[in-house]
């Protein structure tokens, strides 16, 4: 049986409303503004609730990854809602390409649409890998630049919000500030302003400075980093509102930015060429693009540091982190980036980490659970807990494991960061710290 849905064509830009699944909330709300300015009529879906997962279960093979289930469930739930003119609605899905099964989301979506009786809904693919040439969303250079800007600004707001919120003197200040800046930047997007690298580099500082005006009391709190499969890492729908839960436990949360994933995808062109050969021009182009992105990223980091906020190192520095732990050749799914982010977090003062993954996520067997042992051997303070997400995993189970990780973290915090009775490895997915105490002979 063929599962074909109409391709997304250029003229649909003006006739169709494009639905986008939600993931990283702040970043996506800015992207929406960028797309609107370019003439796209888009809506980032906000529908959640148990119906979404139910529909996903119904129309997608249940052993497929949870993100596919949720994204497709969210689309079908939206189409079912009656809110949209079905003759003028299209769906946009991102495709990363590569050996992970996530490259197949679009095929699964088409299959599900046909099964659910929405075979007439066009599906557009957003990818940079040359897949789905006929239905790729038409991208102008300007739009790409604006999307990139939306991610940069979004990452910055998310990072600032997370670094201020736990310490604010008046509850709600950081959130209000974030909402204000989302509006402002959306305005920029609509007015075609400040999306060039040059402008961005100038705008970062005033934003950071504004957050720095919020009165805070910096009592030490447990600092938790979140890494994982990209969708469950960011999407509150996918991770049972993990960020909120951690905040409710009085933690400072650090979600490494979405731009890291974009840069990772770009960097892989160069790495692949380097490892196996191939088109050197493409690789060189990718490297140049990475340089451009990284220069913007560095400007952002500088602005953060200037006002006393935490900022990670540059992306090229991040690429050095996995050395001795995992090769940069591991490029499926989140690949080496996930491992690199864990190390970056541990070294950056966020030794407590939730590694969020969909149940049975193949790349994460390798780059997540598979690497924890090595990371602990090098960084005994690493306190990492992998958490599985899927339609039937219960919140109580997930939160119980996270709480165990937090209990260890709190104990250390109370010991002034010094491990009196060091609980070196916190939790389930385990792995022994490899630094076996080798007793020298003759003592």
């Amino acid at each position, binding site marked *: *049986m*063929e599962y074909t849905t109409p391709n997304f064509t250029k003229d649909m830009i003006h006739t169709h409303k494009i639905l986008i699944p939600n993931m990283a909330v702040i970043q996506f709300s800015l992207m929406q503004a960028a797309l609107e300015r370019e003439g796209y009529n888009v809506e980032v879906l906000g529908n959640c609730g148990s119906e979404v997962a139910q529909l996903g*279960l119904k*129309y997608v*093979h*249940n*052993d*497929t990854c949870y993100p596919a289930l949720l994204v497709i469930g969210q689309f079908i739930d939206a189409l079912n809602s009656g809110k949209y003119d079905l003759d003028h609605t299209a769906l946009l899905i991102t495709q990363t390409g590569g*050996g992970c*099964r996530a*490259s*197949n989301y679009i*095929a*699964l979506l088409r*299959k599900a649409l046909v*099964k659910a009786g929405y075979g007439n809904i066009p599906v557009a693919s957003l990818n940079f890998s040359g897949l789905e040439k006929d239905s790729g969303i038409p991208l102008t250079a300007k739009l790409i630049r604006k999307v990139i800007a939306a991610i940069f600004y979004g990452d910055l707001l998310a990072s600032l919000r997370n670094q201020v919120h736990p310490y604010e003197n008046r509850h709600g200040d950081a959130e209000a500030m974030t909402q204000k800046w989302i509006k402002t930047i959306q305005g920029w997007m609509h007015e075609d302003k400040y999306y060039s690298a040059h402008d961005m580099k100038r705008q970062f500082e005033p934003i950071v400075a504004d957050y720095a005006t919020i009165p805070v009391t910096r009592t030490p709190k447990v600092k938790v980093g979140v890494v994982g499969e990209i969708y469950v890492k960011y999407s509150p729908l996918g991770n049972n509102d993990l960020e909120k839960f951690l905040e409710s436990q009085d933690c400072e949360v650090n979600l490494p930015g979405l731009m890291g994933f974009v840069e990772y995808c770009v960097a892989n062109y160069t790495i*692949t060429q380097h*490892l*196996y*050969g*191939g088109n050197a021009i493409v690789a060189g182009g990718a490297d140049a693009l990475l340089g451009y992105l990284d220069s913007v990223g560095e400007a952002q980091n500088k602005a953060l540091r200037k006002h006393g906020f935490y900022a990670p190192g540059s992306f090229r520095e991040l690429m050095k982190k996995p050395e001795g732990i995992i*090769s940069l*050749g591991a490029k*499926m799914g989140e690949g080496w980036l996930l491992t690199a982010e864990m190390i970056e977090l541990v070294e950056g003062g966020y030794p407590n980490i939730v590694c969020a993954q969909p*149940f*049975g996520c*193949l*790349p994460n*067997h*390798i780059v997540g659970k*598979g*690497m*924890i*042992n*090595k990371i602990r051997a090098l960084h005994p303070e690493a306190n990492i807990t992998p958490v599985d997400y*899927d*339609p*039937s*995993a*219960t919140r*109580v*189970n997930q939160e*119980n*494991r996270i709480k165990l990780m*937090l*209990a*260890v973290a709190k104990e250390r915090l109370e010991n002034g960061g010094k491990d009196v009775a*060091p*609980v*070196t*490895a*916190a*939790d*389930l*997915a*385990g*792995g*022994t710290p*490899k630094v076996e*105490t080798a007793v020298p002979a003759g003592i």
Partner: protein
Amino acid sequence: MRVGLDIGSTTIKCVVLNDADELVYSTYERHYSHILEKGHEILARIEKDYLHGQKALLAISGSAGMGLADSCKVPFVQEVFATRVAANRLAPGTDCIIELGGEDAKILFLTNGTEVRMNGSCAGGTGAFIDQMATLLKMSADEMDKAAQKATRTYTIASRCGVFAKSDIQPLINQGAQAGDIARSIYQAVVNQTIAGLAQGRPIKGNVLYLGGPLTFSTVLRQCFDETLHVKGTCPENSLLYVALGAAFYADEAFDLDDVAKRLDDYSATSTYASLPPLFASKQEYEEFHARHMKATVPCLPFGADVGPVHIGIDSGSTTIKLVVIDDNKNILFTSYQPNNGNPIPLVRQVLTELYEKHPNLKIASVTTTGYGEALVKNAFHADYSLVETVAHFTAAKHFMPNVDFIIDIGGQDMKCFKIEDGAISNIFLNEACSSGCGSFLQTFAEALGYNVKEFAALGLFADHPVDLGSRCTVFMNSSVKQAQKDGASIENISAGLSISVVKNALYKVIRASSPEELGRNIVVQGGTFYNEAVLRAFEKEMHVNVIRPDIAGLMGAYGAALHGKSKTAEGHISSVLTLEQLKNFSQKVNTVQCNGCGNHCQLTINIFADGKRFISGNRCEKPVTGKATDESLDLYAYKLSLLLEYKPVAGKRGKKIGIPLCLNMYELLPFWHSFFTTLGYEVVVSPVSSRKLYQEGQATIPSDTACFPAKLSHGHIAELAKMGVDLIFYPCMTYNVDEGLGQNHYNCPVVAYYPEVLAGNCPELEHIPFFYEYIDIARRKDFTAKMPKLLDKYLPGIPRHEVKQAIDAAYAEYARHMALIRQKGEQIIEKARAEHRRIIVLAGRPYHVDPEINHGIDKLILQQGAAVVTEDSISDRVQPFKTTVLNQWTYHSRLYAAAKYCTTQPDMDLVQLVSFGCGVDAITTDETREILQAGGKLYTQLKIDEITNLGAVNIRLRSLFAALDERNGKM
């Protein structure tokens, strides 16, 4: 005063300490899900008896206590943390704690770097698991322990999780294994599971402390731990109360317990859990539903005066034994439906004897057996026919609805669904190990909550807000129930939720249907579980279609068998079944032995009957029965393995030994690398073919318990290689596979591509042996040739470039030769099979499915059915690239699609797909393969395999496939 409250998944524990921290009161009771009521009751009791208005320091712990603690504003202590607090005080000097609870297993290392390990969500259910198993054996937990003390042997039971173990145990029960032996095997499985899942390479030694219910109550379980770990662990005083004690020690905030109890009541009023619409909107709707289903009946008549001729059908199922007697007009004269209590033989004997005695002139024309135990019962009682159960069910369903196009049967352990087209079974769905046990799960759950299954199910009919419990597997349901209980769901709503979950499991896990049209419009539902009206209703509601549930829903297999016997029997025929006299003298002796005929080491159960007739079960091949080895000339799997085993070490000029683990993609690339290094002048040593022992050798270092079994096995291969004195272990990472031009790309799956990284990070052996796991792409021959010398130089310096080039050429040539040999042999087998008029089965998997430890001898099972076995890679070059619905980007899976496509052009060729549990890629490929085959008018059969050792379900599936194929060809 200090009070610690520990609310676990099945029990509630509470301690009261006086100001000198002495235990003045403790309680340990099952809460039967009435967490809030129990909590209230206990707190009120303590207030009344000990506190008298005084405040006490209070903390709450336990997996079910978390949300509850939050909402009544009492400090919560994570339970592992609490255990540690208690152990530091009460048992100083402890090195390691093993604690098994209702659903959690934990290991705490206290000395030399404290570490805490908790089971992942997939291995849930240890105490609850033992409870379930005890129920299965019809014993109390105490009786099970007693029985295990008398055990003489231990069976291998899968230790991944409770559901898997259950699938292993049920057939053992059916084969007549001794209850005591099974009981001990269950404890041993718990031990293996705990150690494999949690120790992860860290040795457990020194002073070991055993805590929690199961370890406190079962001496055999402790003994199994002692023996496996070579330690002498202690189960301390108050071993059940450590978490509660830890919470009490930790408590630093004073509360008035009456206040807390009151807050619990408020909490129960705010029940907020995900709920589903009720099953019935009104009483009237129920009445109509009930009346509609009362119509599908078979006339039941008393025995006639001439008592015959009658036909008897016996369905020896996994948990029950069903027997139906019909007359020549298909009317039912007698039925019997009983739990088999672990051994069907005495029950059948008893029922037959009673029939004879009540009806002295009984003329039995035929006896037909079906179900799990069909062969055993047939042999024991000399029945006339036996029938694979799927066909028996279809035969019975046809009687109720001649135009039936879909049958779903939910029994105790199995779920079977078949689609019928043109009067023949066109598609079979059997549940995988992962969703098994759903029928009996309802029963065990009901019993655990103190109800019988009927009462329990009836409770759910009028529930107002059924709990949404998800549908992944029964272990997950357990914890969903836990969550719902925490959120204050009533027993009625839990009952309804469980019934709905069982249905969803069937629909979305097994059938994978999204609309009623897909199933067909004429559906017959059957199996004992559908007597449960809540399940029946949930099914109709979920699918929006009215179905037929025969009044003999639980007897359909037996009825179908009887009908089959009737249709086969000529008038005047007299059954060969044992006479009353023979029944009286009947005896059964059961022996179990391990067959050592080959590497499979099948666990054989030998039944010896009064007439000296022996019946052997548990075998994969005919060797233990006939004494002859299976003819492997039609088995491409055996040939492929034999090709690989020919790559022997050849001492070379460079003197060093290169070790290659025979795992994952090495099952295809061994010829390539063997030739490469041999040409270079190295001696290539290959790890031995996988075995159970090899697996166990490496299982402690596996970091992700949900990875696929083939990947997990590689840890054992590394461990073996380390013992073989190699100078370097070679196992490169390969993002890309070879490119055969069949798809849009030629990736490996992430696990195959990067598993060497996991080995490097987790196998302690690799700390001392150089390990080559560089990234290599052999699809780009030129680039590979240019880059390889440099990579090699890091590990084996000084090899001249031209020699490497030479070796690479030799490697590609050898690989090409190897693949050509496979294809030639495939062609030969196909020709031979055609000449002998045999069916050809394409047993499609990946190269590593050739590993006998992975395929469990399924190729042999197919040969036993008289068919020939070829592989996907032997025929994948016979089709042109074609468009697939999904992104066709993995080389191994491109072959699969191509093989499926080729099958559709060959009338005598059918495909069976092997899927390893946990293979995420196969979630995508199975649907695609199914569609390719169905579009070409072929049946699709999938066999999901893991470390399971029992092949009962696989056998049924294969036999059903052959029966369906025969039926299609009109051979029946």
